[in-house]
């Protein structure tokens, strides 16, 4: 466990415990405590990473492996956007207000634990904590569909956990320990028969693939995202499922030395499933009628890109995967938060009933368009650069088919988003658009902040590239 980042885990936990006591009399205090905690963490992180001396030094002084710090940043960023949004979104009479904020803070703490774990079992423990908090968060608004989504999530992630435990026991048997370093040393040492370790790793990879909602196991994702309480779906799609599954896949891809041809079968499997999930997600998204459900399928498709790159495992691919993971957190948060705004203002997320929302809700529309274009990989937004890195890495590795397919499906992504933009934001003014008005400024602020970040990351790509390269160099020793 990374000791330097322990504070980022403990402080949210303390705030979470504090909330039910402090906010018993004054309900709004819960919002304040949660927001202040996350904002303080974010400010601290920004100071740590974005100091001028740090930037000019090429981020060489970043403690640890850099990936942890970047992802803690993403966790806090999305967590802050979600709590800030919820503070104005949540109705005053909601019965479990304090529990809601406590759960978000616990899930932030758990995610910090996941990304700072240095041992497979610790990773597993924190992932379970994260899963348990997610169910309760999904069902916050007591809707039937929320409970349904939560149940489907429940009954797919826990069998996956059993697979992970089996993998862990084989790893313990053959390595004698579960730390990341041990596996790294073992894979680097070039012991001829790495079969047993690979078998254990395969079981764990399978578990993490289910948890990250990659193609054949993606059935729970749309249900959970669509049914979830609106701000929670942003939290879930933006960061939770990425940390609980995709992060572990990237970490294992680096540890198993995919780049020098060890564990080739696993690498191939991961790449195939990544491609499959890109295709399935994109094709399914084309047929959706509901805004949130389409976003969920798009999320399946974008996760496919990350898994594809992780499966390839070359330094360039790992850079692309990490960058895309971060980008995914930014654009999916914007989109899901905006879908929550739509739901609040227009009362529906059914795309047939929406239309011409640009006139009624200009800010919501235009931040969505920025995020959509970034998802589809249009230059100069940040999503373009990460997809470029992934496709370049595929091409460099000689996997021309995968490279072309990845490019092709990124055009499909653009296509379904065009369809959606026409249906929801542009075009003739629908009855829903006439009846609805722009949501208040505080509800827009997180989306605007994230959109600004998308544009900034795209324009300041060289700096981010330096950071990501540093990360890739450190995790691929």
């Amino acid at each position, binding site marked *: 466990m990374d000791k330097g980042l322990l504070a980022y885990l403990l402080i949210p936990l303390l705030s979470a415990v504090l909330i039910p006591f402090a906010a018993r009399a004054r309900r709004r205090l819960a919002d304040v405590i949660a927001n202040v905690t996350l904002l303080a963490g974010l400010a601290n992180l920004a100071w740590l990473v974005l100091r001028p001396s740090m930037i000019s030094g090429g981020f060489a002084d970043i403690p640890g492996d850099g990936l942890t710090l970047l992802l803690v940043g993403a966790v806090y960023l999305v967590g802050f956007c979600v709590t800030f949004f919820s503070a104005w979104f949540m109705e005053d009479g909601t019965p479990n207000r304090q529990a809601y904020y406590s759960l978000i803070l616990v899930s932030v703490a758990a995610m910090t634990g996941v990304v700072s774990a240095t041992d497979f*079992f610790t990773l597993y*423990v924190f992932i*379970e904590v994260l*899963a*348990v908090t997610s*169910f*309760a968060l999904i*069902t916050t608004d*007591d*809707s*039937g*569909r929320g*409970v*349904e*989504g*939560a*149940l*489907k999530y*429940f*009954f797919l992630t*826990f*069998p996956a*956990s*059993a697979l992970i*435990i*089996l993998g*862990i*026991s*084989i790893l*313990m*048997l053959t390595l*004698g320990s579960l730390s990341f370093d041990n596996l790294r040393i073992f894979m680097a040492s070039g012991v001829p028969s790495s079969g047993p370790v690979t078998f254990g790793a395969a079981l764990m990879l399978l578990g993490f693939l289910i948890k990250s909602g990659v193609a054949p196991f993606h059935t729970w994702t*749309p*249900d959970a995202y*669509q*049914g979830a309480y609106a701000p929670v779906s942003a939290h879930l799609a933006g960061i939770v499922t990425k940390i609980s599954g995709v992060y572990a896949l990237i970490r294992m891809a680096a540890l198993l030395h995919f780049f020098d041809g060890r564990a080739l079968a696993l690498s191939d499997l991961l790449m195939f499933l990544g491609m499959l999930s890109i295709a399935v997600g994109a094709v*399914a998204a084309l*047929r*959706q*009628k*509901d805004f949130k*459900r389409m976003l969920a399928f798009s999320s399946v498709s974008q996760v496919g890109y990350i898994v594809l790159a992780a499966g390839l495992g070359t330094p360039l691919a790992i850079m692309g995967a990490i960058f895309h993971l971060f980008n995914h957190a930014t654009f999916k948060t914007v989109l899901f938060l905006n879908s929550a705004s739509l739901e609040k203002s227009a009362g529906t997320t059914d795309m047939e009933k929406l239309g011409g929302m640009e006139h009624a809700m200009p800010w919501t529309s235009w931040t969505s368009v920025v995020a959509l274009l970034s998802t589809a990989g249009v230059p100069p937004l940040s999503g373009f650069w990460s997809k470029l890195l992934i496709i370049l890495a595929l091409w460099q590795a000689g996997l021309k088919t995968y490279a072309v397919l990845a490019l092709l499906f990124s055009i499909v992504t653009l296509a379904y988003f065009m369809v959606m933009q026409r249906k929801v934001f542009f075009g003739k003014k629908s009855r829903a658009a006439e009846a609805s008005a722009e949501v208040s400024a505080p509800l827009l602020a997180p989306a605007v902040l994230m959109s600004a970040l998308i544009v900034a990351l795209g324009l300041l790509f060289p700096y981010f590239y330096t950071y990501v390269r540093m990360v890739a160099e450190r995790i691929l020793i």
Partner: protein
Amino acid sequence: MNSFPMEWYFTALMMFVGFYCMLASRSIVRQLIGLEIVSKGAMLALLSAGALANNLVFAQALVLTLIVIEVVVVAAGLALLVKNFRVNGTSDIWKLDSLKG
């Protein structure tokens, strides 16, 4: 010849029964029971692997953590079950099909 292969053979059998239950049953309670059986199997596998590798103390420490996790997971599952029963009025998982597309 040590006893490890037979232990894992029985464990595999147990996990098969658990997974079968999760696949075959429509009732949420029964699915939870299947899940419990599967996770018991996983614990047994972990402990017998630890015993084989002369790492029993380490394995025992992991199993203790697993038990704590299991309790909270089952409590969360049962809470979901009761909430689902209150909200949707059913404990049949296939009747839940309002989300489609």
